[in-house]
């Protein structure tokens, strides 16, 4: 007769053995010939442009890689007014900033840079940035 305690010990011994084998197998898989499918992030190779011999020198359009702002009240105002002079990458690039800094930044856009933002919209933009882009609140 095998006691219940012994049964349990055999079960655990087997289990540990199986685990060691499994991890060993995974490890072996990672050692050689390990590939994974991924987004290449490929870049299109431009064709040589047809150039004329006149005095005009030009380049293609500058591409936009515009990030998304976090959804929330005030996002529309930020999109409408901030976007006049710069894309939201100017917001998303920043580290999480204290609420007072965001207020100072938006005030600077109006006072120093001359952005024409109605008072109501300006308050909503500040509130929006304070709600989503501070050290306490920023997630994305």
């Amino acid at each position: 007769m095998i006691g219940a305690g012994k049964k349990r010990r055999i079960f655990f011994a087997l289990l540990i053995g199986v685990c060691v084998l499994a991890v060993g197998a995974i490890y072996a898989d990672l050692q050689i010939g390990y590939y994974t499918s991924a987004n290449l992030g490929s870049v299109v190779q431009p064709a040589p442009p047809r150039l004329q011999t006149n005095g005009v020198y030009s380049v293609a359009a500058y591409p936009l890689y515009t990030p998304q702002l976090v959804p929330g009240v005030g996002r529309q105002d930020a999109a409408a007014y901030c976007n006049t002079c710069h894309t939201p990458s100017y917001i998303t690039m920043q580290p999480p900033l204290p609420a007072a800094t965001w207020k100072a930044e938006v005030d600077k856009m109006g006072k120093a840079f001359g952005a024409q933002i109605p008072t109501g919209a300006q308050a909503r933009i500040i509130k929006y940035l304070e709600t989503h882009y501070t050290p306490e609140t920023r997630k994305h």
Partner: protein
Amino acid sequence: MLAHNESHMENKSNAYTRRSLLKTIAVGSGTLALSHFAGATALAQQLPAAAKRLPSFTGPGPNPYWNSVGPMATYPQKAPLVLLTDRPVQLETPRNYFLNAITPNEAFFVRWHLESIPNEVDLSSWRLRIEGNVNKPLALTFSDLLHKFKPVTLAAVNQCSGNSRSRFGPRVAGGQWGNGAMGCARWTGVHFRELLDMAGVKSGSVQVQMQGLERGKGPKGMPSYEFKKSLDLSNPVLDESIVAYSMNGEPLPMLNGFPIRLIVPGYFATYWVKCLTEVRLLDKPDENFWMNPAYRVPDTPRGTTTSADVAAGKVRMIPINRMPVRSFIISPDGATKIPAGLPVTVRGTSFSGYGRVAKVEFSDATRGGWREAKLGEDLGPYAFRTWEYPWTPDRPGKYSLAVRATDEKGNVQPDEGVWNPGGYLWNKIERQEVTVGEPA
């Protein structure tokens, strides 16, 4: 990580069995399975660096990475560069390009303040105007610049005032550059003084103002409409400045200021006006936003202060000027393990806005003290000076490599950062952690 391993296993013919096995284990014994999954996670951390993405932003602490964390993006005439912002365009040069003293045009960093920058320049109507407080206003063609003046060539580092701003603690708002908002090119053009002399600067002139084709969507008269910079006429840097039409023996890329830009050796890039079209002699100091309050630094040693002192109005601010001495470790970059006992060449670059780099010292923090590195070719007082140090780590472990430069004026890089509200003048000693593994 786990999801990653699972998808990997699905690609293998025998993967399904193993996955079932793992599931069985997971059901059979929670605790044991957890510990083994933890093991799998540790393994996954040794996977190629490309498998794991950088975060999309850093903070509130300092950015711990060499470059900023943006994605790589391609722009006209450019290799893939690190994207900070897409409109206006700001692109950072990836670390590996700094192994050479000359930064290729296609990798040279890009920084514009305003969004309306040229995609096209018609040289048949383009003119460089020298005007304002002068005896004879000039309107020079591109070919005047090429043929009516003696060409001069100079290698010089162009560094954004806010380079390494993301190192600041506490962080400050602004372009969150890593270390790659810098580059060194061979600039060919015309002595700036020669142009000023040709126009005849009237007595009573105090500053020379530069403006290019950069425009913004803001109201006229506001800094969001145009970008202008000025230098004192008494500043000796004007004698060394050139109006460059060639960069590394090629036309300037549009994003770096085609057809000409001002080169102000030793000075931060804010004065190196791109797509230069107007040079104005002023009879009173320029007080436009881009001169005051923008691009100002505390008039204190190293330009460092505190936000409390700024708020209390205790700090006098002056226009930013010369670049403090800096040096960088470019390779190894910490992404690859080095076997103990293998000799490796630690390589990097250095420069100073105050003149030649006289000495670069290396430390691995284990054998105490700084050891002098071998300097690369001397391309002139304002160029990058590469350096290298033969290093053989003798034992496995984590090593903190450090580099420090001293310029010919005796300025030495300090081991403390700076803080100022603009996020300027960073030149703390750079460190790189590397992992040395068992050789056998």
